[in-house]
């Protein structure tokens, strides 16, 4: 156990000593405040769209747009765009060692393959959690500072108005669930990384599966109804669930358990591959 903890600590240290780890952080740091500034300076199209959807039944005076609303819409990057920063690091965590030949040095130590893989998996989880929460903090922080705070208007199913404090609480839950969603992506890329011997293969492989899976989850064709429950992307919308009223806890737990199953499944597959793998490079 102590060896596993030590190995995990050093895996985290290795992750945060690499340049590629900071690509995601740098992008979020630069891009999100810029979007907030642009939303503040030039307006945010969502207000018009939302009011148009409500037709003539509501007359609204003032502005709906604030930092929380923009942050809410920015959560959509978690579907396809943001996973890039996860696969960039997660895809390299096993394959990178294989390509660099460092497994040879690492595995001549009294540490088991189970411990090596598990420590890397935990480190990947840690990175995923850190970068997802960083996105949340930058979105909400820069949103409130640049665009301004206030009540959050959610228009997905009618109008839901959340006070700023309530909205912040919902964001906290949402980003916690976003970690689970991104961890599925991380676990998938980790599995590919265990098989591959370079860092590019897992990135391409994960994105191919992710995009195809998302398309199949979203397209409304009856014949796909039987396939959809088996696609992990079907449960990806769980991070938007906290913005309903009341919060659908049952749905959140069910979807989280499904996603957790995928995470454990990909971890077990990775373990089975790695334990039998001959280290030749």
């Amino acid at each position, binding site marked *: 156990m102590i060896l596993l903890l030590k190995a995990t600590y050093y895996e985290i240290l290795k992750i945060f000593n690499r340049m590629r780890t900071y690509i995601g952080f740098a992008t979020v740091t630069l891009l999100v405040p810029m979007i907030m500034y642009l939303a503040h300076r030039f307006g945010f199209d969502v207000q018009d769209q939302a009011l148009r959807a409500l037709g003539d039944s509501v007359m609204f005076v003032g502005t709906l747009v604030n930092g929380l609303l923009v942050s809410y819409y920015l959560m959509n990057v978690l579907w396809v765009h943001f996973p890039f920063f996860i696969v960039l690091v997660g895809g390299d965590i096993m394959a990178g060692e294989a390509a*660099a030949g460092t497994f040879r040095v690492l595995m001549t*130590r*009294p540490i088991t393959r189970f411990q090596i893989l598990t420590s890397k998996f935990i480190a990947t989880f840690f990175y995923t959690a850190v970068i997802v929460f960083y996105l949340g903090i930058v979105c909400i922080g820069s949103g409130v500072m640049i665009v301004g705070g206030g009540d959050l208007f959610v228009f997905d199913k009618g109008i839901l108005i959340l006070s700023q404090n309530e909205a912040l609480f919902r964001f906290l839950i949402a980003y916690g669930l976003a970690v689970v969603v991104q961890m599925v992506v991380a676990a998938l890329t980790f599995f590919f990384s265990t098989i591959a011997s370079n860092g590019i293969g897992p990135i391409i492989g994960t994105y191919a599966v992710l995009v195809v899976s998302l398309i199949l989850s979203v397209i409304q064709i009856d014949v796909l109804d039987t396939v959809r429950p088996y696609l992990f992307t079907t449960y990806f919308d769980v991070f938007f669930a906290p913005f309903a009223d009341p919060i659908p806890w049952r749905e959140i737990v069910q979807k989280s358990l499904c996603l957790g199953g995928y995470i454990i499944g990909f971890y077990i597959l990775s373990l089975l591959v790695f334990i039998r793998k001959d*280290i030749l490079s």
Partner: protein
Amino acid sequence: MIIQTHNLGKRFGDRWAVKNLNLTVEKGQIFGFLGPNGAGKSTTIRMLLNLIRPSAGCFELLSQRVGSSGKKIYARIGALVEKPDFYLYLTAEKNLEILAALSGCNSRQRIREVLEIVNLQERAQENVRNYSHGMKQRLGIAQALLHDPELVILDEPTSGLDPEGIHEIRELIISLASEREMTILLSSHQLHEVEQVCTHMAIIDNGSMVVQGAVKELLGKTDFYVTEVRIDRPEDAYQLLKTEKWLDDITLDDELLKVHLSADSRPLLAEFLVRHDFRIYSIIPRTSLEDYYLTLLKKRHGR
């Protein structure tokens, strides 16, 4: 027994890279592990170090059956397998710190000691990315010694080092065995190095054991003596001798005849040359490991 393999084998597809290998290394030996490229040396070492799984047989390290003891036994073993690879984006010291922690020793003092042993203490804070191949090689040896192991497995440890570095590593290997009582398994293509350093050796070819034993004993076997002969008219002598059945082989190299024959047959050679009116300047029996090795493999391949 420090290393004992029992009919160890590894198959890649249909090809056996190592087959029925019975290797025995005892405490305190500096054991040379020799063989041509593709003979199965690295595969054997990888099996011993748990990098690849054997397809057949089993082995013991430090008198413990590997598998039953888990990986704890590797806390007593240091290794450098092929080229030394490290985390290039970390300093040498940080690399060693990680490996030390995973080996169950965490002493900064020990890290400094091993860096000093391999003469890298002044560049310990540099990223390994900036290291030359020779420096990485020395760092590779440092990581193998980090946890003060009882058995050190070194695969081509002097590869890429300058002559001074090679000399230092040879001296280090000898001192590790004599002063720290470490057992060393040394895989190398440098026959001269093995001859100078090793007390025992094994030669494998096509994945099978050809011979193993004490270096002195093996080289003392008369069958493998090469006799260097300097005479007048070496070309004529070469033409005459190459048809003779009582010698194993003969080559002419820059007016020097190299005759492969047993020590018992050496008087016959002198007699033969005198009888054919050659003037003999010198007849020198040589028993270098290189001759031994080449002769052995030639015989094995029927050349």
